[in-house]
């Protein structure tokens, strides 16, 4: 192995390409022999060879990087395995999974994920839909607006952008709270709105924190304190009541991909339907709820499925903003963050495998449930 990391990876890349080519020809030839043995005509034998030859990179990669690792991690999830100690895995049966049920850290990560899906995802879909409807009005400079709304998707959860948000969310000097203060001082109604939103948000967060810790004294405190004082601002990255909301804010900011999907859906709705409603004297509100929205439900469904999977995989914001922040971590920890912590900080491979499988199972289960109940509300009339 070369000492220079750049040359090392280049050599390995060339070796990998050679390996893939050899494996592809091997798989293609094998497939041709089987086709020949099965008595396929000459042309089909050639197609079998070519098909497996071209698909081989994926098939081989699937075996090496997906199927075999999944099998191993399933086995390890039933063992006590620490990669640092150089001892073989020791079979412990279901004890990892049993331990997970009583693990307060894991429980917190599930409850926090629930918050992101129950509060963040609907907000994200609503904002995406709202922006799509606005853009669908055929305005001047539509393309510039589209670009601006899609920009956050490209920037994504890049560390750089997350840190920019961290600066903006500072409780004392951050620009967001400065603007909230300025608006509150200028327009008293805004101040009341701000205080009401803070109160409701803290109540909801306190409920979720109560569920994850089993103790509801924080909820009682928030409730007893009543409507916050006039000069209160959100304590974004400093209070356990606000940490999850800061992640929700980031999610909503990145709703541009969902917006594009909704825009495609809106473009698909035949003009005649709206014309007919105009003849009947429908207003914009009725146009949206009686025509557009029912026909958009397949797109809402798509965004829900994709968004939920994304919610269950959140890692970067928690790592960049809250890593090592001991008092706050439990209030915001996500399942993937917890997986990272157990597997790659504590190197508990057996326990980490159990978490991996639980995450996988949750994603499959949630998606399956969504597909089962979609018949009740998704409207496929147009398709």
């Amino acid at each position, binding site marked *: 192995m070369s000492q220079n990391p750049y040359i090392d990876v280049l050599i390995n890349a060339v070796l990998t390409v050679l390996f893939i080519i050899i494996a592809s020809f091997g798989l293609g030839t094998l497939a041709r022999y089987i086709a020949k043995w099965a008595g396929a005509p000459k042309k089909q034998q050639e197609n079998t060879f070519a098909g497996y030859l071209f698909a081989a990179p994926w098939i081989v990669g699937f075996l090496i990087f997906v199927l075999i690792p*999944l099998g191993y991690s399933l086995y390890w999830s039933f063992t006590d395995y620490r990669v640092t100690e150089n001892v073989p895995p020791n079979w412990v049966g279901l004890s990892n999974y049993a331990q997970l049920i009583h693990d307060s850290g894991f429980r917190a990560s599930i409850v926090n994920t629930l918050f992101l899906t129950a509060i963040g995802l609907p907000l994200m879909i609503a904002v995406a839909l709202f922006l799509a409807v606005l853009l669908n*009005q055929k305005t001047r400079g539509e393309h510039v607006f589209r670009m601006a709304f899609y920009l956050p998707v490209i920037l994504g959860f890049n560390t750089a952008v997350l840190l920019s948000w961290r*600066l903006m969310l500072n409780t004392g000097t951050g620009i967001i709270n400065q603007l909230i203060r300025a608006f509150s001082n200028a327009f008293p109604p805004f101040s009341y709105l701000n205080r009401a939103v803070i109160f409701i948000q803290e109540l909801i967060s306190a409920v979720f924190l109560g569920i994850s810790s089993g103790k509801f004294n924080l909820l009682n405190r928030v409730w007893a304190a009543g409507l916050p004082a006039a000069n209160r601002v959100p304590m974004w990255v400093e209070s356990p009541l606000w940490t999850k909301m800061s992640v929700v804010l980031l999610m909503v900011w990145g709703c541009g991909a969902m917006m594009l999907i909704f825009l495609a859906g809106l473009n698909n709705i035949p003009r005649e339907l709206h014309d007919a409603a105009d003849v009947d004297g429908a207003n914009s509100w009725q146009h949206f709820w009686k025509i557009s929205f029912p026909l958009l439900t397949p797109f809402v469904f798509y965004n829900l499925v994709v968004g939920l999977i994304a919610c269950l995989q959140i890692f970067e914001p928690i790592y960049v903003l809250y890593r090592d922040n001991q008092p706050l971590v439990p209030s915001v920890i996500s399942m993937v963050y917890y997986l990272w912590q157990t597997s790659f900080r504590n190197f508990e491979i057996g326990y980490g495998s159990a978490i991996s499988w639980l995450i996988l199972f949750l994603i499959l289960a949630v998606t399956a449930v969504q597909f089962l109940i979609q018949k009740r509300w998704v409207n496929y009339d147009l398709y």
Partner: protein
Amino acid sequence: MRTTWHITKRIILYIFLTGATVVMCFPLFWMISSSLKTLQETNSPGILLVPAHPTLAAYIDIFHNADFLRSYFNSVFYTTLALIGTLFSIAVVAYAFSRIKWPGRNIVFFLMLSTMMIPSQALLVPQYVFFNKLHWIGSFNPIVIPGFFAGGAAMIFLLRQAMAQIPVELDESAIMDGANHLQIFWEIVLPLVKAPIAIVATFLFVGLWNSLLAPLIYLQTVSLYTLPVYVSTLYNINSAVQPWPTIMTAAVLTTVPLMIVFFIAQRYILEGVVITGLKG
């Protein structure tokens, strides 16, 4: 009456759209603005939209920071290498799924689509052990090599949809002329799917450039860090004062390639080529 109402509605519409645009672009603006401020200005209470005394000090400093420059090079290097390998293998596999009829194609295709449901994080633990056995921890291999095996089912699907739209007659006449699949792939199909390839390349680039978790786990030493990992170390939660101008300068320089790629590719992405691909 009707026209006044109509004009008012238009004005409200534009106010909303402009407001949303400002909100969406604000973090980027704030990043740039803060990178030009002094440390005092970034920590001062008060609304300072643009720095009172713009300074390039942070930029000059960061160009003397060897760790930052190396992590920049590392990011460019690993992204380029992984992008080439992934893009090429994805195109090859998409060709197999769209232009060749072979027994088992539907089963393999369905299998590939179902891997979209498997979160990459669920595979991290066993893959880590596997790479550890290969002595690949602390090298670029684990974040570059897996992509060479057509990593990214959604991207294969997107490209397959685009390739499937090319008329079959083109292949058939080429086969008449004695061309093999490799020639058809390279000389006929690839030139016809340039736009979808550009989109896939953009998505792959963005994914690789923004990637944090895998580089964090596998690279281990500062000399190998990619930008997201290195930039995250600049923000230390336990120190009282954060060097915000420095962090924001690093952030601006990190996002520059993303912006360039987005401006080049936005026409294809926003005009819904992707969505036609997804729907078909």
